[in-house]
Structure formats: structure tokens, C-alpha cells
């Protein structure tokens, strides 16, 4: 039994390493591009775009874990969700840093006006703000400190982060909405998968609300 657990732990470690490597690839590519000057005519725009897109992709990947566990019958996928979520936060932070530094050069007044006046920036900031408490309470210690239920409730903010992120992208483009529309469709599918699941399982929040407080403890 002990040997089996050890093997499982080793496999988990290997998968984690591979995952970590994969999600750092876009970052490595950007670093290489900056050092070689191969990011095209407008490198700052390129970095902004890439980091923003990877934030969205990883947010959607994080949201895909729960439905995929069910469809693939692979409950162990949950072990990698935190890594995906933190990676989304990492790229989101880079994205914000690019804006604060390379776009605005720490002009806080101008950024404040941007956040109030420009709705696509408001949405982007909202998305990032929603990710901060999630990243901060991502450790096992925080799950214990908050308690599973409360922790889970807090982490529903990920829906806000993803939705505001997609809206941020949608409001940013000038006229060609194909890309943001694709992200929106994937997000909608992932949310729909959850609604369908809630409709089926006994500990659905809908059913719980209907059945009263007794059925809440499951």
C-alpha cells in the first residue's frame, strides 16, 4: 500500500512539473522575444496582448477542471486546478504591470481617470481585483482557516474574474469581435455545464433553496 501511494505521489509530481513547464512557455517566449527584439514593431502592445490572452485562457482552463472531472471520470484533475488558477493570476499580474509601467509609466492620476472613464479598463481592473483574494487564499492553510464552505463561497469570485475578463476583451476590440466572441462562447459553455450539473445533483443550490435548510448539510 505504501509503495502504491509513493508511486502516485511521484506521478503527481511529474505531471505538476510538466504542467508548470507548459504554462511558463508563453512567459519564456515573451522573455526571449524581448531579449531578441523579435516582438514586432510594437513590442509593448504585443506583451500586453499576449499576457492578457494567457490570463483569459488560463482562467477558462481553471473553470474547465470541474466539468472535465465529471465528463472524463477523472476526479484527480482537481489537484492541478490551483496551479492553473495561480498561473492565470501570474499572467494577469504581468498584464496589469505592463499597463501600469509600460503604458502609463506609473501616472496614477491618469490611471485613475482611465478606470473611471473607460469601461473596458474598469472591467479589466474588476477582473484582476476578483483574482487577488483567490490567489491570496489559495493555500491549504487558508482553506482550513476559512473552512471549506466559506472558502468555496469566496472562490466563486472566479466567475466574476472570468466574465469581467471576457467583457474587458470584448469592449477593447475595435470591430473584429471573433476572438472575444470565442472566449465568451467557451465561458458560456463552462457555465452551462455547471447549471446542468446543479439541476441533477442533490446538493444543488437550487434544490437546497427549494428544500429548505435541512438538506443543506450534505
Amino acid at each position: 500500500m505504501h509503495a502504491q501511494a509513493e508511486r502516485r505521489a511521484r506521478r503527481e509530481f511529474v505531471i505538476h512539473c510538466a504542467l508548470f513547464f507548459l504554462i511558463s512557455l508563453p512567459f519564456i517566449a515573451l522573455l526571449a522575444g524581448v531579449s531578441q527584439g523579435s516582438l514586432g514593431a510594437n513590442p509593448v502592445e504585443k506583451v500586453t496582448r499576449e499576457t492578457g490572452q494567457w490570463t483569459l485562457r488560463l482562467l477558462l482552463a481553471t473553470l474547465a477542471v470541474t466539468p472535465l472531472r465529471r465528463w472524463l471520470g477523472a476526479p484527480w484533475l482537481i489537484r492541478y486546478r490551483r496551479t492553473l488558477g495561480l498561473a492565470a493570476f501570474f499572467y494577469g499580474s504581468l498584464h496589469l504591470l505592463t499597463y501600469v509601467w509600460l503604458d502609463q509609466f506609473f501616472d496614477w492620476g491618469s490611471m485613475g481617470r482611465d478606470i473611471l472613464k473607460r469601461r473596458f479598463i474598469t472591467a479589466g481592473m474588476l477582473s484582476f481585483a476578483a483574482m487577488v483574494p483567490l490567489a491570496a487564499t489559495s493555500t491549504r492553510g487558508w482553506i482550513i482557516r476559512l473552512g471549506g464552505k466559506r472558502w468555496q463561497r469566496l472562490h466563486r469570485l472566479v466567475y466574476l474574474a472570468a466574465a469581467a475578463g471576457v467583457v474587458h476583451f470584448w469592449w477593447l476590440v475595435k470591430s473584429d469581435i471573433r476572438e472575444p466572441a470565442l472566449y465568451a462562447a467557451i465561458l458560456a459553455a463552462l457555465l452551462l455545464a455547471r447549471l446542468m450539473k446543479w439541476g441533477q445533483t442533490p446538493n444543488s443550490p437550487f434544490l437546497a433553496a427549494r428544500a429548505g435548510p435541512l438538506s443543506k448539510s450534505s
Partner: protein
Amino acid sequence: MSRKETSGTARCGENIYKDDGEILRRFLHMRDRYSLPWSMVTPRSVYLNRRRLLASLLAVPGLAVAGQKLENVRKSGYGQGEKLTPYDAVTGYNNFYEFGTGKEDPARNAKNFRTRPWTLRVDGEVLKPRTFDIDEVLRLAPLEERIYRHRCVEGWSMVVPWIGFPLAELLKRVEPNSNAKFVAFESYYDPRQMPQAAWAGIPFPYVEGLRLDEAMHPLTLLVCGLYGEVLPNQNGAPLRLIVPWKYGFKGIKSIVRIRLVKSQPPTTWNLANSREYGFYSNVNPQVDHPRWSQARERRIGEFFKRDTLLFNGYGNEVARLYEGMDLRKYY
């Protein structure tokens, strides 16, 4: 010939004969034409000369293919002291939505765009409406190089050595009448050569417009080249407009038609989103685009942003055109 059908220069059903009877009459006359006296025969030497002349016209460097050097270009004093944006950036970072909405798309997708044969129709409120062949247009006036600042509405800018001549030179040739108050421009559009256009999210053909005094202003340029060579396809070959004190999208590309009109013509970005893009679109750091500030710009190739100048720094030349106008209202 497919170009002509779609460009609006020779519309379907627009017969050069008045009626079918005339076609028949002309056909009957042709019998007489066969019996010409020898005095009418073109001497062989002249005939051969004409061939040589045609061949030499076709061989005028740069008048046919993108990338060819343009000869006899006069330098001008514009843009002294400005550092030129590298050629690769000028020709590799473009907004030309007919060929895709990504900045690198036009260079890739316009590679095989056919710019010959090409005609330019100039008509409307003019005394002498005309259809020019493109190579005729390029010989209307001496070509000159002008280094202009180019400011995109998206917040980036370049410095480009354009080659062309003032639009006024062309407009004078057709003699605008007293009704002409505005100038309407139309781009070439062919969904077969521009399949990416379907996804751009803006209507085509692309149309733009200027007030007549803006169009006649000596800074307003018809451009057929850059960096000493024929205009690359992705930059709007074979003929585009450059209005240096306005945002770049006013500089309509691959022009097939210019019409002088009585009232303000529709413009593409204004049709797509009138709240964000007005008719005038003068570069103005005080008037923000609703979604981003226009106070500063990133000069391509530079790390720090620089302040955007009113009328893109051409205020001395053009501010008088807008005297007494509320530039916030007429954005």
C-alpha cells in the same frame, strides 16, 4: 477585367454606344475602313517607334510593381530632424482591414494583390469628369518625397518618407464646379482578393471624405510610394491618401474613385461607430477617443510615450481651416 466590373469604373450595362442601331451602323461603316488608300498606312519606322515607345513606357522603373525604385523624386523640406521609422515597421505593422485586422495580416495577405490594370474615376461636381489610368495619374505632377508624422487613432505613430504629389494637382485637372464642397473617396473592394474582409466588422468598400479646402490643402498628399520605392500593397497600393494632421484612418488606401460632392459624404469608421469616430478626425490630444486617451502616443521604435500634438504638429499650416469651429463637437 474583373477589376473593372467591381470597381465601379465601368459598370455593367453601361454601353459606349447609344443604342443597338448605332452598333449596326458602325459595323456597316467598317466595310469602308478596309479600303484605305496607301497614304493612310502608317510607315513601318513610325509603327516600330510606337512599339518601342510603349515598351519604354512600360519599363519606366517603379510604375508597375511594388518594391521597385521610383526615379526622379524631388526631396522636400518636410520632416527635417525627424527620425524615420524603420522600413520593416512601416511595411509590417499596418491597419488595412480588407486584408485582415491583425497588424501583420496585410503584409501577409496583400502579397498577391493585383494593382494593374487599375483605373481611377474622378467625377461628381466637376466640369471635366475623367477616368484615369493609374500610370497616367502617376505622371500628372512631379513626384516628391515628404517626410510626415503619421498618428494612428489607436495611440501609436510613425515617421514615414512618403512619395507622391498634392491631391490638389489632380483635383485641378477635373475643374471642380461651384457646387463642390466636399470630396468623397472610395477604396477598391474585391471579396475574392480580400477574403479576410468578411470578418473585419466594418462595411466595405471603405469610404472616406474631406472638406474641399482640406482636400486642396498643400499638405494633403496622393501617395504612390514610400522609402524611395513603389508603395507596397499592404500600405495601400497603388494610390492612397495621406492627410498628416488627421488620424491615419482618414488616409484611405487603394483608391478607385474620387467624387466631388455638395454635402458631407459618409465615412467608414463613422458608419461603423459614430460615437467614436467623427468626420473630421483631426489629431487632438484634448479630445479623447471614448475608450482611450489621445493625450500621448507611442512612436513605433521608442520605449517612452511622447505627448501628442494638436493637428499632429501641423497647426501652423492647418489651424486656420478650423477657425471658430468647436473641435470637441466636430471630432
